[in-house]
């Protein structure tokens, strides 16, 4: 067995186990930590697929940013020790059935399909190529989505700040009617 296969088995086992644990754990903080493990294993998978840049981004953003954010908000909105989180059995059963049905459908479809690989040569993905593509205005340049994403990030920042701010909503520009 090649080393990549062993790594693959390891990573995928971690992903499967920890994702199931995330969605079934009773204690919220544990669920957050399990999510962290899933994200790190996913990053490992990316390394396996030879996308180093993306793996680094995944680690930085997801594991370092979002999970921290989630833990902060958990601490803000509930007690760590408060853990009783169980739904009725009806909801569980139906959701499990739906998820199972979807999973079986997808897996059967995947196994049925004949994937045909292309015969062209592989491109080496290095930082130089990524940087050039991000700023290139050619046919395969990604400058437009790049700019759009920056605007999106700005908008999200503003939205998050405004929505989470304390204080009553302002009445914008309504004149007082009893001042004649």
């Amino acid at each position, binding site marked *: 067995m090649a080393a990549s296969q062993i790594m693959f088995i390891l990573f995928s086992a971690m992903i499967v186990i920890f994702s199931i644990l995330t969605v079934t754990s009773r204690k919220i903080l544990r669920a957050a930590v399990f999510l962290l493990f899933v994200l790190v294993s996913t990053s490992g998978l990316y390394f396996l697929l030879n996308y180093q840049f993306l793996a680094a981004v995944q680690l930085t953003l997801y594991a370092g940013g979002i999970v921290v954010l989630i833990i902060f908000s958990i601490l803000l909105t509930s007690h760590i020790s408060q853990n009783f989180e169980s739904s009725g059995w009806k*909801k569980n059963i*139906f*959701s499990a059935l*739906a998820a199972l049905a*979807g999973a079986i*459908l997808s897996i059967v479809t995947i196994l049925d399909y004949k994937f045909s690989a292309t015969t062209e040569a592989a491109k080496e993905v290095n930082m130089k190529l990524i940087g050039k593509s991000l700023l290139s205005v050619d046919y395969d340049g990604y400058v437009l989505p790049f700019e759009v994403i920056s605007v999106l990030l700005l908008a999200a920042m503003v939205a998050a700040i405004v929505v989470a701010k304390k204080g009553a909503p302002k009445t914008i520009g309504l004149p007082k009617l009893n001042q004649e």
Partner: protein
Amino acid sequence: MINFSYTIWIPLLPLLMFLLLGLAGHKLKPKLSGLLGTCGLGIITVLSYITAFKYFFTSEKVDGAYQKITALNFTWLQFTDKLHIDMGVLLDPISVMMLVVITTVSFMVHIYSLGYMKGEKGFERFFSFLSLFSFSMLGLVLATNIFQMYIFWELVGVSSFLLIGFYYQKPSAVRASKKAFIVTRFADLGFLIGILILSFNTKTFDFITLTNPTGTAIAQGGGIAFLGLSIMTWSMIFVFMGGVGKSAMFPFHIWLPDAMEGPTPVSALIHAATMVVAGVYLVARMFPIYAISAPVALHVVAYVGAFSSLFAAVIACTQTDIKRVLAYSTISQIGYMMLALGVAGYGGHEGLGYMASMFHLFTHAMFKALLFLGAGAIIHAVHSNYMTEMGSLRKYLPVTHITFLIACLTIAGIPPLSGFFSKDEILAAAFHSNKLLFAVEYAVAGLTAFYMFRLYFSIFWGKDTQYHHTPHEAPATMTIPLIILAIGSVVTGFIPFNKLVTSDGKILESEIEMMVAIPSVLIGLLGIGIAYIMYKKESAIPDKLAVTFKYSYKWAYNKFYMDELYLFVTKKIIFRYISEPVAWFDRHVVDATMNAIASVTQGVSFRIRGYQSGQLQKYAFVFITGAIMLAILFIYLWK
């Protein structure tokens, strides 16, 4: 060809007055609204006289017969290319004659009402309704086709309803107006059925086409038979049913005495001179069809008329309300007119009855309006309707006295007043056709003289009553119409009707037949004499007679219990066995169905609204499940 298109203004001007006074009357001063209404009518009276003069004396005659002139005719409603309802103005001898009658009497009533209704609340409303009535009646007589006549027939009924119920706060007046409308409406059902049968078989509504004696409409008469009578006879009998209702013939006469609840000018205009003769006018208008293809229907007309006149005359002998006496007298006189039409034939000497009927209509309008307006003056002076509370009024009301006397003499048929001439022609026509009916009418003539003079003597002579406050003569606005109508009653006897209004439009040679005239005058004088004996001075004879003929008196006094019979039939039979089950069905089946639909809808919506539960995860579950099912559908099942 003379241009008669200005005649459209004759009905239109009162319509405009109705709208003006009805919508803006309460803003005007009462006097102004009264004057407006009266002036409107004055103008159209003049126009009618001009039309009559032009038509009778300057229009062209064909074969010596007056022509029916269509002054204007336009299609109002078009259903298919053969079925359409027109509106228009038709001028022929009877319609022009009716124009003169209606406008004259209406004008007199308008002037009279200026005085009689003075100070009443609703003065403007009265004048607007009077104008509405004038419009409807004029539209009726000027109709070019039978459907237009039906429309205006109904309009006249509505105006009558509004005017009888004028004092709408009096329950008796409201009841009377309802009764009038319902009875005439029921009769109009027959009229409508008759119209439909007639026009279905003759394929037209138009009068000129229908009543053309040589045309095809009349020839349809022979055709299909149903229960022994031809289709035309049935349709004419049904059409006559409408006339029976509107003219208060037996058995639809019950509304007319109660209609006296309306103000007296209304009684004069509508229930004496104009509306009640609409039935007679209808038969006269359709006369060629009656005479040529439905002679059986004509017999029905004659017998109904004769019976009604006898019936009403007997009742009138016992009534004490002066307006009721006059109402029954009206029924009786209209019976005369119907009888005269019933015994007539078409053309030449046979048409004597037709001419006599129209002549009597003309003179009756004058003297009956005079009688009612005089009664109004009496009621205005004494503030009571009952003969028993009056007496010796000749000292206080001189003008009313003289005019009332003239009218009573006219109705009794004393020469040389107009009533003698017209009644004599009717008796002559009856004498030559049907001796039984002649005998009935002869007796009724005597009864008429008797009860009219009973009325006259009881009011103006009789006992020396002491009044609370001295009765005063009516003001000039009320006495001038009385005088004018009295002059009319005297003079109109000399109008040569036999040259102007006959069944076929040609001149009818006629003369006074001494064999009929002398006995009729004699029986009139006999009636007057008996009334003189019984009523001129206070005497005990009437009471003694009442006791002797106890049962006849009781039956006649209670109008032969006809009202009670009708009430019994409607309340105990129709309401209980037909109306109540229908009402039950409506409430419990129809309404219940509606309610069931509503409550089922409500129940279903209550169940469905759970889908908007606000539960996020439920929404997501449905979404996922739907997506999976769609995926299965499109990937595996859709080939």
